[in-house]
């Protein structure tokens, strides 16, 4: 590998990514970190106050994240602390910008409030994360396994789950 490819030239970020200056001060307790990398913005937030933050992001006229694209789970490994991360990909249909909100969770306290009342999309997306990672979404209207059989044991996308299954 050549040594001069450390300076990676990324193409200009398109679409525009959201302007986060507005929420920085308003949710100082909830937001832990704002990361800008590879043309994308990630908010690392605490679980407490997540619903308030998301509702604000959805309703604030200058942000208007009316569309929840995706919720992705992430297992950082058996011995990592915090072990899990959940990444929400938000999108604004009107303003055409994106934002990623990330929450880290400890293994023995893998709970998150459901966003069912903010975006209905979260119904199945949260069920899938529960199914694959065992992260529980409190107050979810219908938290059952979705892809795996109802009587299945284990959480397939965790890193300590063997690839051939049990």
């Amino acid at each position, binding site marked *: 590998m050549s040594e001069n490819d450390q300076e990676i030239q990324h193409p200009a970020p398109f679409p525009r990514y959201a302007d986060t200056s507005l929420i920085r001060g308003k949710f100082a307790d909830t937001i832990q970190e704002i990361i800008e990398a590879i043309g994308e913005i990630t908010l690392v937030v605490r679980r407490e106050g997540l619903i308030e933050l998301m509702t604000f992001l959805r309703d604030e006229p200058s942000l208007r994240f009316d*569309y929840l694209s995706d919720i992705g789970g992430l297992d950082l490994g058996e011995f990592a602390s915090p072990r899990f991360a959940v990444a929400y990909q938000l999108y604004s249909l009107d303003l055409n910008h994106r934002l990623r909100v990330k929450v880290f969770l400890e293994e023995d306290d893998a709970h998150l409030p459901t966003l069912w009342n903010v975006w209905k999309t979260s119904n199945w997306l949260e069920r899938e994360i529960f199914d694959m990672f065992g992260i529980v979404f409190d107050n979810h209207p219908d938290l059952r396994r979705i892809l795996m059989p109802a009587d299945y044991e284990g959480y397939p996308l965790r890193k300590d789950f063997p690839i051939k299954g049990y």
Partner: protein
Amino acid sequence: MQPKEIVVPTSSISMLRRPDPLADTQMTVSLGPQHPSTHGVLRLELVLDGETVVNAIPDIGYLHTGIEKTMEKEKWQQVVTITCRMDYLNSMGNDLGYCLAVEKLMGVEVPKRAQDLRVLLTELNRLSSHLVWFGTHAMDLGAMTAFFYAFTERERILDIFECVSGARLHQSYFIIGGVRWDIPENFPALVRDLLDRFRNFLDECRRLVTGNRIFQRRTKGVGVISKKDAIDWGLSGPTIRGSGVNWDVRKAEPYSGYDTYDFRVPVYHDGDVWSRYLVRMDEMEESVKICYEALDRLKGSGSVMADHPKLNLPERDLMKQHIDVMIHHFLLASEGFTVPIGEVYQSIESARGELGYYVVSDGAERPYRVRVRAPSYVNLSALPAMVEGQLLADVVAVIGSIDIVLGDVDR
């Protein structure tokens, strides 16, 4: 609950005057997983009151193959062979989304010719995917002939895929950094021949199905979802554009040079099965337009692979002269290449909607995590909202109109 009596004309035989045991009771019917109109292995638990759907509970996972888990064990470049197996009708689009995500992580610029090829082939794939939808959707509603017309035409598109990549369904033709190899000589002629026929073929389809009164009455006003609900449920693709939302990832966040193509995004406002049907039919015409333009740009020649030391094997002559080049070749072939640490979310417009890849790299030669935002999965989650209060027979029409692929839903 007290059973109701059947009201029969007084002239009828008095023997029939007995209480109907089924009145006022709800019946649960299982639709699928082997039902042909569920387009795969979808099972729906329908709670019915007479013929009206009270509640619908989708039961999925029959086709779950753990693709996201398998991706974590493959090398970066090998993952391309799995992505196309998720949404098997739109395989080129699946490969494209993954390649774009990894290229964004690596900061690789794909050559112009490869981008044009990618656009051409994904649009052809969109055509073939919409043809399967058209045929099966019409067949679900009783129009058998349309199915044969659509599949005959789709066969010609698959022939083109075979000509360019050697495979008909799981092409794996797009790889990180470009496309696998350049097109064969007879490729442009084949595509042009197909496109020249295609407009006429679409007119034929419109005459066959669009003007059909039975088809219109089965679809107009059925499975309505409002603009607000469509956004709230996260619908995407033709399904949301049938509800009046003008959103196409190709226009909103252009990739592979889509911003340089001249095309229109068809939008209809009624939010019913009929609107979604019209959106897809118009979309096919726009795809043909894009294909023509991409085909014109493919004249001449050029590189189809990014000039990046990690993505290309070194030249054979150099390899025989220099030991370091030899080592580089050996490492690339045996261990693969690494991708810088980071995470990206890249979405594209697949034939079904927003297909997103959330790729996380820890700097190793395999992806740490690839999360796929499958458009069918999210679209299907809104199905109960669409079919509640509809007739049982209309459920089939609604399933057809959101055009799910169960491989994409279950992954």
